[in-house]
């Protein structure tokens, strides 16, 4: 019973990891670009919602809207003004620039918010649970978190395959050199991709704030979880990323059930195991 419970908890947690991973996967898919500061931006989202709702007392709806808009705009500008300048065949500049950003963000957060660990209290949301069948109950908060992940990934899938923006993103991913001949502006398209990814980062940050304790140094671990979910799921497959997140989440909660100290380690080991067995991930991209 405890085992089944921890697996269910792990699945819900996997939703959060899929939210972490979706933005990373999107940016890599379009630009072959890995943002080392990805986790730190998620933590920024968490601090923003905390500031808006707790410190400023704004309504949650307004707060969420502001976080999402702010991060999307910041993501667009960051790509347009800075990151586009280091994109290219050499992988080193983007890694180093985003590594530098990661250090700046972590220390900036430390300066503003101190090293204390924080959490966004959600009151009744946290104490209510949903009945699943006769036997099981799942907390409302983790349940909503998981459903958010499913919705976000479904939405990304829709944007990618059913909208003009998605068409342009895929075309740019295929052959960025030729896209300007079709009237596409790569700098703008890349910035839109990062803007969209940052929107998802905002959603992930809000859920991080509600789900767990976080502090200014919490970013790198989030980057690693995001990365692991992407690799376990298989590159280029966004539903695979959800499954990758779930596998990672279940590995962690089952590990924690064995011994609290094994939670994170078990997740990493599950990732390494997948890397040994199937380096292309469990659900690599199927051609459309």
């Amino acid at each position, binding site marked *: 019973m405890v085992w089944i419970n921890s697996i269910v908890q792990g699945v819900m947690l996997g939703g959060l990891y899929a939210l972490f991973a979706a933005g990373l996967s999107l940016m890599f898919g379009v630009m072959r670009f890995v943002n080392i500061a990805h986790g730190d931006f998620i933590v920024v989202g968490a601090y923003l919602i905390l500031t808006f709702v707790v410190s400023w007392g704004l309504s949650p709806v307004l707060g969420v809207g502001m976080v999402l808009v702010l991060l999307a705009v910041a993501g667009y500008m960051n790509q347009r003004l800075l990151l586009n300048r280091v994109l290219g065949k050499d992988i080193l500049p983007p890694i180093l620039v985003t590594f530098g950003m990661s250090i700046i963000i972590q220390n900036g957060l430390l300066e503003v918010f101190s090293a204390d660990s924080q959490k966004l209290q959600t009151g009744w949301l946290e104490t209510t649970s949903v009945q699943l069948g006769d036997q099981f109950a799942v907390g409302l908060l983790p349940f909503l978190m998981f459903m958010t992940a499913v919705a976000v990934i479904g939405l990304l899938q829709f944007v990618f395959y059913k909208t003009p923006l998605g068409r342009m993103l895929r075309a740019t991913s295929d*052959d960025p050199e030729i896209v300007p001949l*079709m009237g596409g502006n790569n700098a703008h398209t890349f910035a839109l991709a990062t803007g969209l990814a940052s929107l998802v980062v905002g959603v992930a940050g809000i859920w991080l704030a509600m789900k767990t304790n976080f502090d200014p140094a919490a970013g790198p671990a989030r980057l690693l979880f995001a990365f692991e979910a992407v690799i376990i799921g298989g590159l280029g497959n966004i539903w695979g990323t959800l499954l990758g997140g779930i596998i990672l989440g279940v590995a962690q909660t089952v590990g924690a059930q064995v011994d609290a100290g094994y939670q994170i380690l078990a997740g990493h080991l599950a990732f390494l195991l997948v890397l040994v067995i199937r380096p292309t991930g469990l659900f690599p991209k199927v051609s459309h």
Partner: protein
Amino acid sequence: MTKLLEVSGLTAHYGDFQALFGVDMQVEEGETVAIIGSNGAGKSTFLRTLTGLRPSKGQEIRFCGQQIAGLPADQIHKLGLAMVPEGRRLFRSLSVEENLLIGAAGKRKGPWDLKKIYDLFPDLVAKRNNPGTALSGGQQQMVAIGRALMSNPSLLLCDEISLGLAPKVIKDIYEAVPMIRAQGTSILVVEQDVSQALAVADRIYCFMEGRVSLTGTPDSLSKEQIANAYFGIGEAA
């Protein structure tokens, strides 16, 4: 007739290597013009410079009376200059129809839409939801031409559209040229296949070693003139 494209004294360099030495060219509205020349004559470099894929700052390229040298490729495209790139370059993760729709991203008004493209190339209708790269070479070329037309260009540039295709397929593709002209779209084709170029063009330019070696209407030029301009063996023979 008004001048659609006016290029004067165009040069191009790859490092120390000079690829174009002062090329002059005009295309009138409604005209079909062909550029012929052997490999390495500078034809593709010329097109890439026109479209903004290669730097052209400070040069003299007028399109519809406007100076376009130095503009980025996407802005040149929005003014009505579309290119069918060499090797077709379809987007492999996009379906045939999506490839066509990408061409219309600039939202220019004009005669071309999906229906018109499918009228022009009926073979594509059945394949509209297939991945672009799953088609035969000829059909891929049709998608590439349709994709460029979808932007409703005033001038369509075609870079080596017969390359690597069977003669029968080339003939089918070139049958579309008069129909494209009928919609008022001017065409500039770059072609190694001289007979094909002579058959469709109002005027031809022959390139040799980065210069225009001959220009005129197809019926005013003799075979010898063209052969000399193409291979550069005139004076020797």
